[in-house]
C-alpha cells in the first residue's frame, strides 16, 4: 500500500485542493474543471488495490492487457508563484459496502493524501462537496463553508456568495460532512493543518437523484477563483448546467401541483437554510415514491452479457 510519485517536486507551501465523488458530484466537478483549466500535471497516485476492486479488465486476443481501478491522482501547478496540489479520487474507498468512505480504510486514504501533501510542505487543505439545502433549483447556489479555525472562517467570509454553515439554518453551524471530503478536514486539523470545506448548495430533492449538479459546482469554482486570485472560464460548467437543467426541468414538470406550489415559494426565500425536520418529512411524503420510480428506471435494463471474465 503506498503512494507512487512520478516526479520529485520541490514546492513552496503548496495549497492542497481535494475532491472525491459525492452528492451531485459538486466537488469533483468543480475541482476537476479547475484543475483541467489550470493545466495541472499529474505527479503521483495512490496505489489502488488496497482500497478498491478493479472496475474493468481488457482482454485482447487472449492477452490480459489492463486491469482498471478507480484512480486517486495527485496533480501540480504553479500559478503565478503559488504552488497548488490537486488531488482527485474517482471513488471513495468503502470497504463495508457504503457509498461514502468510513472507518479504517478511509482514515488510511486520508493519511496518505495528507502525508504526501506534508512531504511537499503543504499547510492548507481545501475539500469540496455538497450542502443539501431548501433552495430552488433555478436560484444561484451559495457556497457554504466549514473550516478548522476561526481565522479561516473569517478569511472565507470575504468571498462573495459564500456563507458559513451557521448562517443558513437553525443548527448553529452544527452538522456532519460525510465521507472523505469531511474526514480529510478532521485529519488535517489533527495534524495542525488549516482546512476548509467549500460546499455548493443543492436542492434537497436533487440530492437523491443520480445527476451531477454543475450549477453548484460553478459557485464552488467561483469561490476557488477568488481564493486563488485567478480568472477561470465557466463555459464548460455552463454547458453542463444547460444539459442537466433540461433533465431537471423535465422531472420538475412531473411534480404534483401541490408540491410545485409549495416548492415555488422557495424562490422568494432570501436566506434558505438546510433542511428542517418538517421540510424533510414533507419532501419524503411527497416525492420519495416519485424519485424511487426514477431510480428504478435508471437501474433497469442491465446488459445481459455482463458476466465477468
Amino acid at each position, binding site marked *: 500500500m503506498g503512494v507512487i510519485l512520478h516526479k520529485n517536486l520541490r514546492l513552496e507551501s503548496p495549497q492542497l485542493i481535494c475532491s472525491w465523488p459525492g452528492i451531485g458530484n459538486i466537488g469533483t466537478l468543480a475541482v476537476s474543471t479547475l484543475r483541467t483549466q489550470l493545466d495541472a500535471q499529474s505527479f503521483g497516485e495512490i496505489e489502488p488495490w488496497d482500497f478498491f476492486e478493479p472496475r474493468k479488465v481488457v482482454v485482447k486476443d487472449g*492477452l490480459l492487457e489492463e486491469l482498471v481501478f478507480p484512480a486517486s491522482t495527485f496533480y501540480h501547478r504553479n500559478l503565478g508563484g503559488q504552488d497548488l496540489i490537486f488531488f482527485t479520487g474517482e471513488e471513495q474507498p468503502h470497504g463495508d459496502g457504503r457509498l461514502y468512505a468510513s472507518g479504517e480504510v478511509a482514515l488510511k486514504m486520508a493519511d496518505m493524501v495528507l502525508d504526501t501533501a506534508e512531504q511537499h510542505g503543504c499547510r492548507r487543505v481545501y475539500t469540496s462537496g455538497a450542502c443539501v439545502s431548501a433552495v430552488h433549483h433555478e436560484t444561484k447556489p451559495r457556497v457554504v463553508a466549514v473550516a478548522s479555525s476561526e481565522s479561516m472562517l473569517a478569511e472565507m467570509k470575504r468571498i462573495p456568495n459564500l456563507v458559513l454553515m451557521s448562517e443558513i439554518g437553525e443548527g448553529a453551524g452544527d452538522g456532519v460532512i460525510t465521507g472523505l471530503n469531511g474526514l480529510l478536514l478532521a485529519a488535517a486539523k489533527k495534524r495542525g493543518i488549516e482546512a476548509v470545506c467549500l460546499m455548493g448548495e443543492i436542492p434537497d430533492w436533487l440530492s437523491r437523484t443520480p445527476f451531477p449538479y454543475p450549477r453548484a459546482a460553478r459557485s464552488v469554482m467561483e469561490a476557488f477563483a477568488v481564493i486563488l486570485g485567478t480568472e477561470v472560464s465557466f463555459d464548460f460548467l455552463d454547458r453542463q448546467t444547460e444539459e442537466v437543467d433540461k433533465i431537471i426541468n423535465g422531472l420538475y414538470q412531473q411534480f404534483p401541483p401541490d408540491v410545485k406550489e409549495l416548492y415555488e415559494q422557495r424562490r422568494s426565500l432570501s436566506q434558505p437554510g438546510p433542511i428542517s425536520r418538517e421540510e424533510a418529512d414533507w419532501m419524503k411524503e411527497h416525492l420519495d415514491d416519485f424519485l424511487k420510480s426514477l431510480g428504478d428506471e435508471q437501474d433497469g435494463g442491465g446488459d445481459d452479457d455482463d458476466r465477468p471474465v
Partner: protein
Amino acid sequence: MGAETMTIDRFNIYKKPLLQGGSLVVGWQSADLGKVGMTIMDDLIEGLACEPVADIDPLDFFPFDGADFRSNLVQVPEARFWASEENNILLFKSDEPSQQHYQFLTSVLDFASEICNINKVYTINAVPSMITHMQSRKILTVYNREGLRDELQEYDDVENMEWEGPPAISSYLLWVARRRGLDGISLWPEIPFYLSALEDPGAIRTTMLFLNQRLFLPFDLELLESRDDELVQKMARLREQNTEINELLDKIENEVALNEQEQMTLTQEVYRFMN
C-alpha cells in the same frame, strides 16, 4: 512492483512440498459453471494423490456473520492448497473471497511462489455458450504475457478470449501474477448454457486433456469419457420424451438463436430431468 513481504501468519502450513518450477492450478468453488472448476480440482486431488499442504486463514477474507449451508450442510469457507510432489503440481481449491481480494490473491501467490517455487499459474473457469452437449467444447484462454500466445496455439480446441468488462477473480489473479513475474493462463471452456447448473463432463474432459498435455499429467480420462457418454445418453432420452426440448436443441444445432424464454425453458427442463 515485486512481491511484498509475506505474512506467514495468514497460513496454516501442514507441509512444505518439494516442488521446483512447477505449476499452480486454481479452481473456485463459487459460481462454478458446469461444475468444471471443482470437478477438475477434486479429480486432480484424487487422481494424482495430492495431499493437503496449507490453508489460508479465512478470517480476513470471508464474512463471518453467520453460517452458510448447502443441501442442509453448514459450509465453511475453504482456501486450501494441495500438492503432488511427483507431478510437480500445486492445487488451490477455494471459495472466492468477499473482501480484501488483492491481499487474498497476493497470499495465494506468496505461498505458491515463495514456499512452493511455482512459476506458472492456471485457473479453471467456464463460460456458458450457445452450443449443445453434442458439440466439441472450445477452451477460451486469457494469458498474462505476450509470449504465451504462441505456446497456446499448439493446442487443439484453444481460442483466445476477447473481453472488455467486469473482471473475474481469475483475471485479477493473472494480473497480480504478472506483477510478480509469474506466467498465468486462465482456461474458460465453453459449456452448453443449459448445463450451467449441472456438471458438464464434456467441458471437464476437454480441459483435463489440455492440462494433461500442458503439464505432463498422467490423469486417466476414461472415467470422464464415460460420464460424458452417460450425459449424452440421458439427453437423448430427454429429446425422445420431450418434443419441445428436442426442437430447441435442433434450433441450436442449426445455429438458430433461442430467445430468452426458450433458453429458460431448456435450462429448467434439462435441470429437472437430470435431477
